[in-house]
């Protein structure tokens, strides 16, 4: 090798090292929308939630891996027996990113602001009980009690969502206690989070966290572009990825994709049971028949839905709680097996008859109904087409209709002008209290027959009672027993015919060390303060 070539190589190496050193370790991934707010107490959208998770310091944190509650800014906490009071013992000597000291004053200020009705905080709504009055009592600079006028179920876990804001700092949004802080925001382009120099946590070897110097969040609504950029190495992770993209990435680089198993999300179908709905009376009678609903449920091949529609990255759903929810899932229940013959027998026993391949009711009406779902969601459309084929085997004709989302919501929630629908729930809350607005017969999201003045059926009355019971009980065992029974009723009555639970799929570049994707949000960066990047990947950018 000539001296000239050697010098050229040396120069390249120096430049590479120089650029890597100048850039620092920067994790990059995408937000799918612009964050609506940087105020952690007003967060109501996914993008803002991401910022809050990465920048906000909380008193207690739900460990995304174990689903257990762990101390953060609070060293310890004590919940009163009546679930009306929680007392936190705070860590001492902590500082916000702007240098302001952290004390019980900040917790009191945060709680006061959170519960201010003028703020319209959805995080605050979860704490509202009784007359919504909340008091704070500072017992010492590092000790504070938060007192509610009525019991709040799952009170301690709710504080996982409350990022403490500074009472003293001039720039409230800029002073944070989390591992990162917002350094730059270019609307429509990106958000740069930089390492919080005052972050309090250290790893087991005593090294200051976080390891990363910064996180760049590119605002990118197009998933195709997101995946292409990930493939090109411009992004380090995709937090939640569709089945198709997952399989394509898996075929080219299997080491980057992660299937964490069934998520909390569920897809389901239901029939319109609203008494005043503008549908023929004979159809309403079918839809209000438990036996009819159960027969339809048994005639749906959930294994095929999972295997064909989601390429195996989904599990047949059991009920309102995914098996991923370790504590609240009723393990005595199982997914409805595919039994078209017994489904048909059940319908025949109910007075239906099969005539020239068409199922007819007692009055001779052909069993035909439409299933609506939102246009553009290809997985729901495909599920509807598979269900259409499955039900044709028992003589039921299904028409699949896709509507734009606003029209769909208008039909199913306002005019009740539909017959059956397929939609899904994205659950972020492990606690069943988050499902009160679904199971109470008076609730708006009681989709099959919402806003009932009084429960129209005995089983709905029982569900109302059980849901209220679990919401007021403070003993976790009693709550679990009540909610287990709710799950049993749902399985028996099939107001929602649960179809599948999607798996939590994500992609993480091999250059990221320490990532361990989980099912709870945020799946890939829940331990962002402990993630590191290979220096080689930094240099190549």
């Amino acid at each position, binding site marked *: 090798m000539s001296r000239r070539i050697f010098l050229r190589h040396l120069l390249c190496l120096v430049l590479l090292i120089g650029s890597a050193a100048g850039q620092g370790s920067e994790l990059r991934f995408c937000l799918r929308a612009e964050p609506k707010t940087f105020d952690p107490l007003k967060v109501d959208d996914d993008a803002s939630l991401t910022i809050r998770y990465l920048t906000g310091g909380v008193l207690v944190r739900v460990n995304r891996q174990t689903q257990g509650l762990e101390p953060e800014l609070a060293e310890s906490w004590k919940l009163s027996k009546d679930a009306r009071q929680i007392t936190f013992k705070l860590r001492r000597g902590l500082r916000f990113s702007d240098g302001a000291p952290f004390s019980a004053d900040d917790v009191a200020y945060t709680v006061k602001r959170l519960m201010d009705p003028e703020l319209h905080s959805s995080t605050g709504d979860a704490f509202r009980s009784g007359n919504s009055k909340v008091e704070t009592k500072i017992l010492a600079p590092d000790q504070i009690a938060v007192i509610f006028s009525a019991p709040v179920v799952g009170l301690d876990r709710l504080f996982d969502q409350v990022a403490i804001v500074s009472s003293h700092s001039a720039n409230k949004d800029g002073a944070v206690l989390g591992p990162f802080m917002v350094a730059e925001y270019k609307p429509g382009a990106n958000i740069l989070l930089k390492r919080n120099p005052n972050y309090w946590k250290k790893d087991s070897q005593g090294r200051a966290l976080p390891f990363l110097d910064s996180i760049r969040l590119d605002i990118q609504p197009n998933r*195709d572009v997101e995946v292409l950029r990930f493939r090109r190495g411009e992004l380090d992770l995709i937090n939640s990825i569709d089945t198709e*993209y997952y399989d394509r990435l898996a075929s080219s680089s299997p080491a980057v994709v992660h299937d964490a198993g069934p998520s909390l999300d569920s897809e389901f179908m239901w029939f319109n049971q609203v008494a005043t709905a503008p549908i023929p009376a004979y159809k309403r009678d079918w839809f209000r028949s438990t036996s009819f609903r159960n027969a339809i449920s048994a005639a749906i091949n959930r294994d*095929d839905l999972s*295997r064909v529609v989601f390429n195996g990255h989904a599990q047949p759903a059991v009920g309102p709680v995914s098996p991923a929810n370790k504590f609240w899932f009723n393990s005595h229940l199982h997914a409805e097996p595919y039994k078209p013959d017994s489904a048909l027998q059940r319908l025949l026993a109910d007075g239906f008859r099969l005539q020239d391949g068409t199922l007819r009711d007692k009055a001779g009406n052909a069993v035909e109904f439409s299933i609506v779902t939102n246009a*553009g969601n290809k997985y729901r459309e495909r599920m509807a087409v598979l269900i*259409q084929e499955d039900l044709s085997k028992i003589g039921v004709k299904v028409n699949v209709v896709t509507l734009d989302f606003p*029209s769909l919501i208008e039909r199913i929630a306002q005019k009740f002008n539909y017959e059956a629908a397929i939609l899904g729930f994205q659950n972020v809350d492990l606690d069943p209290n988050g499902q009160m607005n679904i199971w109470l017969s008076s609730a708006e999201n009681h989709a099959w027959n919402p806003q009932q003045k009084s429960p129209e059926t005995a089983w709905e009355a029982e569900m109302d009672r059980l849901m209220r019971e679990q919401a007021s009980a403070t003993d976790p065992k009693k709550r679990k027993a009540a909610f287990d029974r709710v799950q049993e009723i749902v399985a028996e009555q099939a107001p929602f015919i649960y179809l599948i639970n999607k798996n939590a799929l994500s992609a993480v570049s091999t250059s990221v060390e320490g990532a361990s994707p989980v099912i709870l949000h945020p799946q890939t960066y829940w331990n962002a303060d402990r993630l590191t990047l290979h220096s080689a990947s930094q240099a190549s950018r």
Partner: protein
Amino acid sequence: MNLARTLACVVLLLVCVVSLGAGWFAPSGYARQFREAPSSPPSRQHWLGTDDIGRDRFARVLYGTRISLLLAPAAALISTLLAALVGGLAGYLGGIWLRLATGFTDLFLSLPWLFLLITVRALLPLNVSPLVSVLITFLILGLLGWAASARVLAASAQTLRSSDFVLQARATGVRGFRLFLVHVLPNLKPVLYAQFWISIPVFILSEANLGILGLGVAEPLPSWGSLLRELEGMMSFRDEPWRLVPLLLLIVVMTSFQTLLTDETEEVAA
């Protein structure tokens, strides 16, 4: 007839014949689900492989082509007739009628047609069979797609109205609707034909647009729009090139139409 036009005619004819014989060329049908072989590559059983839920892609392309090629002309006929009625009559009558029709047409053209289609479709009854849904989709396209043609026809009718032969007919005592039917309408024929042919590819693409949004023809019936949706999420042409066949077919058909129309326009101009 030049070579390009002949070639375009042959291509269109071939596509029409093959799509009309879909039942013979693809006996498995467009709706049958081979659930054990979803997203499979081309094989002897499935010449273009299967789609995401195991349906034979070749059969779906043929049936989808048949639907688009049969119903787009029907929608074009409806829209051209409406355009002739509104634009032709307004141009012939002139005065306040022309101003009213022009204002109404301009208003219609200023509406965001895609949202209008989505809204109209959302208002329709849900419990209709896929075949009825496809008829409804093209009927809506036909009923909403007349405005641009109406303006062209109004301008042509206005020119004819003051032409020598119409003046001569008037002088001989021909009046009113008879004058329109016997002397004006026959002379609007070349423009009507041109508008009809121009509308066909427009409606094919409109249905494809609706289909891509998932708002076109109801499942399990295929259409070019729903077939093109399969390309969503495709990262590389090299991965599964056979999935590009519907897109290539659409391009070939549209190019053939364009070739025919360009020559037609040149002939009319000459």
